[in-house]
């Protein structure tokens, strides 16, 4: 038997506002996997990701475990090993991209200034390091947030609509990054309405019920 899954969801029931969104959902996210979470608008993709990220502690039934331990248990190293990008960018308009990353609240970013400049370069923001956030376009603000992917050392990535507002070349770079992360032993679960263009997912989690 292989090692325990980085993230395993067992018989998860989730309801929001009195509506049952997800019923008896079970799946595993293993090292090396790149999973896409699909479902129509309002199907509960973001709600599910928030549960998996540990932001919603109540309002669901079922178990969410990481490497065999419930994610909220004291021994679990889950929050050191997980990166969550929500659909809000969390980029402060009053701070420059460099400051946004260096002082990022998640606390798991590398704060070395060279590493940050390299990450900003990778997401195509070379030359924008010291431009206040409110002067950047929506796509550039998203890219500042995506630069965190180059600065963290976490195997588990939970990404909510990472491709929103990103141009075509950026999408391709990001897809390659996700693929590389999964090939290097990480695991990615992301939501998107479009299929990936240049790489193939190792699986789909469909919130209509048919899981792979």
């Amino acid at each position: 038997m292989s090692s325990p899954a980085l993230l395993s969801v067992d018989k998860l029931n989730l309801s929001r506002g009195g509506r049952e969104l997800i019923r008896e959902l079970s799946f595993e996210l293993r090292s090396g996997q790149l999973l896409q979470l699909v479902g129509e608008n309002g199907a509960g993709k973001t709600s599910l990701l928030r549960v998996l990220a540990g932001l919603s502690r109540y309002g669901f039934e079922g178990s969410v475990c990481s490497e065999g331990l419930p994610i909220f248990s004291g021994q679990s190293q889950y929050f050191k090993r997980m990166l969550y990008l929500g659909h809000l960018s969390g980029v402060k308009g009053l701070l420059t991209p460099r400051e946004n990353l260096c002082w990022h609240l998640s606390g798991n970013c590398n704060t070395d200034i060279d590493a940050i400049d390299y990450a900003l370069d990778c997401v195509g923001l070379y030359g924008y390091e010291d431009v206040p956030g409110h002067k950047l376009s929506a796509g550039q603000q998203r890219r500042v947030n995506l630069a965190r992917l180059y600065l963290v050392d976490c195997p588990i990535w939970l990404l909510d609509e990472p491709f929103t507002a990103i141009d075509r070349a950026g999408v391709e770079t990001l897809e390659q990054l996700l693929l590389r992360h999964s090939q290097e032993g990480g695991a990615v679960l992301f939501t998107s309405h479009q299929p990936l263009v240049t790489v193939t997912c190792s699986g789909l989690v469909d919130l209509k019920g048919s899981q792979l």
Partner: protein
Amino acid sequence: MNSSTWRYCLRLLRRQLVLAFRRPIEIANPLLFFAIVVALFPLGVGPEPAQLAELAPGILWVVALLANLLTSDVVFRSDFEDGSLEQLLLSPFPLYLSALSYVVAQWLITGLLLAAVSPVFAVMLNLPAGAIPVLMLSLLIGTGVLSLLGCVGVSLTVGLRRGGMLIALLILPFYVPVLIFGSAAVRAATTGAPVGPYLAVLGAFLCLALALAPFAIAAGLRISVDS
């Protein structure tokens, strides 16, 4: 507390201060509020110096309390709206210390500043010069308690669209003891009575709030982000 936690808290503090200094009006607001109210009082109650000196401890403390209430409303607001707060909750560092960093930043730009400029306002209200050091000291300690309590209220209401009034209802009862002992300390100083006991009680409030309020803030933030 290990060094990476310590560095994380310092980064957080620095971030909050830089954010505040890039919007100087937020820092100036409570001071302007303080100045306007203190300038209006002699017009309302009459300019007799003796009467003003009589009322000064109460006026100064009430205005400091309201100025604190006004500014605490915004502490977590923008971080909640742009998703930064989610990231704060996911950080592997103790939320107690992160919450405390926010409060310290808020206190530095309101409580500390108010205490620093309070002698000017004290002179405007003809407070006896001997009472001014006590006023500053009581404000330094007291606004710390107010900031801690205010942030508890904000953390619970940050998810609501119009939380301002609710914060006042939630938090004002807890502000009252601070107001009573703070103004009593200054009044005691004007009459030459010993001020030690009052300041000691304020200090006890501060210790209690320091120990407990960050837990309440952390829990409040989790609830607000969860909904």
